[in-house]
């Protein structure tokens, strides 16, 4: 064995086959996810699901559809926060909202909404700014269980302190406690916040554009994709946005190296908020 031709790693071969099986059997496409993270998540799944190997996991997955939901929970779900990175929401409030006010009706897409923390954050922000009634929010994810959780709007009470702190730092005009009731160890958010929200299954890897958007918020999703899939996703955003529509990415995500960079202008550079150029 030498450096140029390392012995193939059995785990890596199995992972490739497992992801192929997942795609061909269920049409969930993780083949262009960044491999290092997906491997960590699969190792965790293998252990917690009590499988001796990824091949054993693949066997169960192919023959028992109920394994799909279990595996998806390891591959997709992540814990977020309401008003995560408060300065992002402050920038939306102070810089983006004034532009959005000029439209009689608005469409907002939260792509990769996971358990919905950001959906409720944006609904509150738009309510505070008086735009909620003219807005439709599309909250999409590939994990049905996450979508259900998002639709339920129930979060552990021990997270509320952090959510409240973030909400205040975002330049809030109201108190977070106006929006939920505590029930033992849970905080149940006001169902009226989701009156204008459409929760829907949508994959940035395999699905296409579904509506014309004024604002797309997709944060800490692209980092899980390889360069090819990042390009595909940003292409969808580019296609979806109205002229001069807005795209918000995660704190450490950027269009700088994207093929689509020329189609966007920095709007609030440090918050990774972009504006689609006129074309």
């Amino acid at each position, binding site marked *: 064995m030498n450096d140029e031709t390392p012995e193939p*790693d059995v785990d890596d071969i199995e992972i490739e086959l497992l992801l192929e099986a997942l795609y061909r059997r269920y049409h969930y496409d993780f083949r262009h996810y*960044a491999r290092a993270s997906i491997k*960590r998540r699969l190792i965790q799944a293998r252990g917690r699901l009590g499988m001796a190997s990824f091949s054993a996991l693949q066997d169960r997955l192919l023959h028992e559809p109920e394994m799909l939901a279990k595996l998806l929970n390891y591959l997709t779900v992540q814990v977020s926060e309401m008003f995560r990175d408060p300065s992002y929401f402050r920038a939306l409030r102070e810089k983006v909202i004034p532009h959005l006010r000029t439209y009689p009706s608005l469409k907002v897409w939260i792509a990769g909404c996971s358990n919905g923390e950001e959906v409720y954050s944006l609904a509150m922000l738009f309510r505070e700014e008086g735009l909620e009634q003219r807005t439709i929010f599309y909250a999409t994810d590939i994990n049905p269980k996450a979508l259900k959780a998002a639709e339920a709007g129930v979060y552990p009470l021990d997270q509320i302190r952090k959510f409240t702190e973030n909400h205040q730092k975002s330049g809030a005009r109201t108190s977070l406690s106006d929006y939920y009731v505590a029930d033992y160890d849970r905080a149940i958010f006001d169902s009226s916040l989701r009156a204008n929200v459409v929760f829907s299954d949508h994959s940035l890897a395999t699905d296409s554009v579904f509506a014309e958007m004024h604002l797309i918020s997709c944060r800490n999703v692209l980092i899980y994709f*390889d360069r090819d899939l990042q390009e595909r996703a940003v292409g969808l955003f580019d296609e979806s946005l109205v002229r001069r529509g807005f795209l918000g990415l995660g*704190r*450490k995500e950027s269009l700088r190296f994207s093929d689509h960079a020329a189609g966007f202008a920095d709007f609030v550079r440090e918050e990774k908020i972009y504006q689609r150029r006129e074309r």
Partner: protein
Amino acid sequence: MTGMVVIGASAGGVQALLTLLPALPADFPRPVLIVVHVPPDHDHGLAGLFEARCAMQVREAEDKQLPEPGTIYFAPANYHLLVEPDGSMALSADDPVNHSRPSIDVLLESAADALRRRLIAVLLTGANNDGAEGLRAVARAGGTAIVEDPETARVPTMPAAGLALCPDATRLAIDAIAPHLVRLAPSHVRP
């Protein structure tokens, strides 16, 4: 890719790195990726702190970018830093590992996978066990494992935990690590 150096540091780590990093020459032939445990809420500005003091270039790691030789990359606050199979850097907002994000284990394990024997990993001072599993993964993949000598480290817990899982790791005092990395470099460089 010609190889890579990855470094993990926790309590006392900035001080230790102020000894180590300025002693590396501008033409150091590999990229150096670093995880330092810092509070999650703010951009830590480590790249700015070290830039003025180092001969090597210093940057914050950016998602899906190929690290370059002669350049030091710090993991951003509140994100894991990983190395992809093609040697590019990747960020993740996954849950903390060992109560840490960024986690040293996450960097070392992914880099061990990607670089195998072309990886050199260094575990410095710290008050927890993050990095120990990662160091073992590096050694198992045929890479080179180095720990700061716990007897002289500012906080011995982390390097001692590394040695416990990776007893064959090279033990060095902090000021001996940079010269050692420079000596290792030529023999590891492959066209």
